[in-house]
């Protein structure tokens, strides 16, 4: 029995997602990434005395969208709270958050696993928060940029429902896809717009009580979610097996060394002294307002997948692949709409485009072949202008150069030859060069027909219309 069979991991994730608003949570400063330092600050978000926070209505609406997307309970009244701690990136000395009464509780999402099974993961709560600024460490000093201070966030806290690193990774991906579909966040982990902390503990299989949990931070790329969680599970198992006690602590993932390292022990754990934010009234979400937000909710992955199956006649598998992200689904719909051939479009996107994008490490939004250009290529095959085989060559060139199918076909002279008077001489030439095969065919070896068709295709560099070649070969051999 391996040690992994002896123990079971218990994992819960806390995700912070920046909301796609124009302005910050409680002031009018711009919410935009990458601006010059401290160019998006004002008296409110720098914590000047005498200022008051004013709630961004759209931030609230995006939070409600997130709640709707995870089928959670939305509370008509929630309360903002102050989370008190001192750190240079937090100018007020407290972060406005929600504590005892968040606006959303009891949600769930369903994740798919590699063995084909599905699992439901509970979501304890979602609450609103404001982001902190950024400390930049420069050796002998630290400098602070407050552009990010006050940017609206939602924190999504899962139940400790995950048992493996794969489940944690899939939960994170599924949650991100949902929130991106609903236009709540852009979900960019590398930019820090979507951040994840994991609470991880282990217990002997069969034991009901939870083990001592360790908080794992700095999981800031989808590339190493599984690796980081797996490492921490292994570390705890090894420690337990060697009689070392697991201590409650915060560890950070070091992606350069592929290890988790202690950040702080329990004794240093924060004492946040939460209390109700006296500068803000309770947040009231009327049924009418929630209904309005619901009516504006973009189509979510499940709905889109069902629609792709019914509207385009795709299989469940194909519809699932093509709705993996909203950008991909939009791309596919662009191709299918313009080419008027949903099934062929799905094949091209899935078999030709996605494979090449993956190999190049590119996302669909970076595709060198636009939806319109791919649709044009498909139309050219349908109209007989080029053969299916040539189309693949053309596509390769389109992917490499971003050029249109038309210009590549033109420049390389790849147009399909569908003129019998142009093909007949080629067929005769092939017959003259292969008298033995001609005799064989006439003696009854009809299978040799394929040989002649192949030779003609070769002679024409694949440009001949194969159906037409077949007809001409047959006609001339039989005559």
């Amino acid at each position: 029995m391996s040690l992994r069979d002896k123990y079971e991991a218990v994992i819960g994730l806390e995700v912070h997602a920046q909301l796609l608003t124009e302005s910050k949570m409680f002031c009018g400063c711009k919410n935009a990434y990458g601006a010059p330092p401290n160019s998006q600050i004002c008296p409110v978000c720098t914590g000047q005395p005498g200022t008051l926070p004013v709630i961004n209505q759209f931030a609230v609406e995006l939070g409600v969208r997130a709640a709707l997307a995870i089928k959670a309970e939305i509370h008509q009244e929630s309360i903002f709270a102050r989370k008190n701690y001192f750190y240079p990136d937090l100018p007020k000395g407290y972060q406005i958050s929600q504590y005892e009464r968040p606006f959303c509780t009891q949600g769930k999402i369903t994740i798919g696993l590699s063995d084909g099974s599905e699992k439901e993961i509970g979501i304890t709560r979602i609450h609103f928060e404001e982001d902190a600024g950024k400390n930049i460490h420069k050796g002998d000093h630290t400098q602070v940029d407050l552009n990010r201070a006050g940017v609206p966030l939602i924190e999504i806290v899962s139940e400790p429902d995950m048992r493996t690193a794969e489940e944690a990774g899939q939960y994170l991906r599924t949650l991100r896809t949902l929130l991106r579909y609903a236009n709540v966040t852009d979900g960019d982990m590398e930019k820090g717009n979507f951040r994840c902390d994991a609470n991880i503990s282990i217990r002997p299989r069969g034991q009901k009580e939870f083990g001592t949990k360790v908080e794992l931070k700095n999981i800031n790329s989808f590339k190493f979610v599984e690796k980081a969680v797996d490492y921490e599970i292994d570390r705890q198992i090894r420690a337990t097996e060697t009689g070392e006690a697991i201590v409650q602590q915060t560890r950070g993932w070091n992606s350069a060394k592929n290890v988790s390292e202690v950040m702080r022990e329990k004794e240093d754990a924060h004492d946040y002294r939460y209390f109700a934010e006296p500068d803000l009234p309770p947040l009231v979400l009327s049924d009418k307002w929630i209904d309005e937000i619901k009516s504006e909710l973009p189509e979510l992955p499940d709905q889109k997948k069902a629609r792709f199956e019914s509207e385009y006649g795709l299989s469940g598998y194909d519809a699932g692949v093509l709705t993996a992200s909203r950008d991909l689904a939009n791309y596919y719909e662009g191709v299918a709409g313009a080419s008027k051939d949903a099934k062929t479009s799905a094949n091209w996107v899935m078999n030709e485009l996605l494979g090449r994008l993956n190999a190049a490490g590119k996302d669909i939004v970076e595709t060198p072949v636009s939806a319109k250009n791919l649709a044009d290529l498909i139309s050219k095959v349908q109209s007989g202008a080029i053969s299916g085989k040539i189309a693949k060559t053309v596509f390769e060139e389109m992917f490499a150069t971003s050029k249109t199918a038309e210009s590549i076909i033109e420049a390389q002279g790849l147009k399909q030859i569908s003129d019998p008077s142009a093909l007949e001489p080629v067929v005769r030439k092939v017959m003259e060069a292969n008298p033995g095969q001609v005799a064989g065919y006439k003696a009854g070896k009809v299978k040799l027909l394929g040989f002649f068709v192949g030779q003609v295709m070769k002679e024409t560099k694949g440009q001949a219309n194969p159906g037409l070649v077949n007809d001409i070969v047959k006609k001339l051999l039989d005559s």
Partner: protein
Amino acid sequence: MSESVKLDRDEVLKIARLARLELDDAEVALFQDRLGRVLEYVRELNQVKTEKGASVKHVPRDAVSIREDRAIEFVDREALLSNAPAQIEDHFLVPTVIEQS
């Protein structure tokens, strides 16, 4: 108030630590008494009958506190930067801190 509340030494030290304050023995004694008086005042407030009044935990729910999501630039960032004790390269300059969150 009849009896005076006094915080014990460890409570004062804990609060001081959370506030990033270093207190000497005389100051600890001083705050045992002062913070005790704050608690006494709160106890006094708690005796006010508020059943019929609105909750005083937070501001009234009809207070204007929601705004349209529109970016408005604050033009005088120099004033904000110069309000801090030190600046460097358009940043607020602070003593070295160890990253922890």
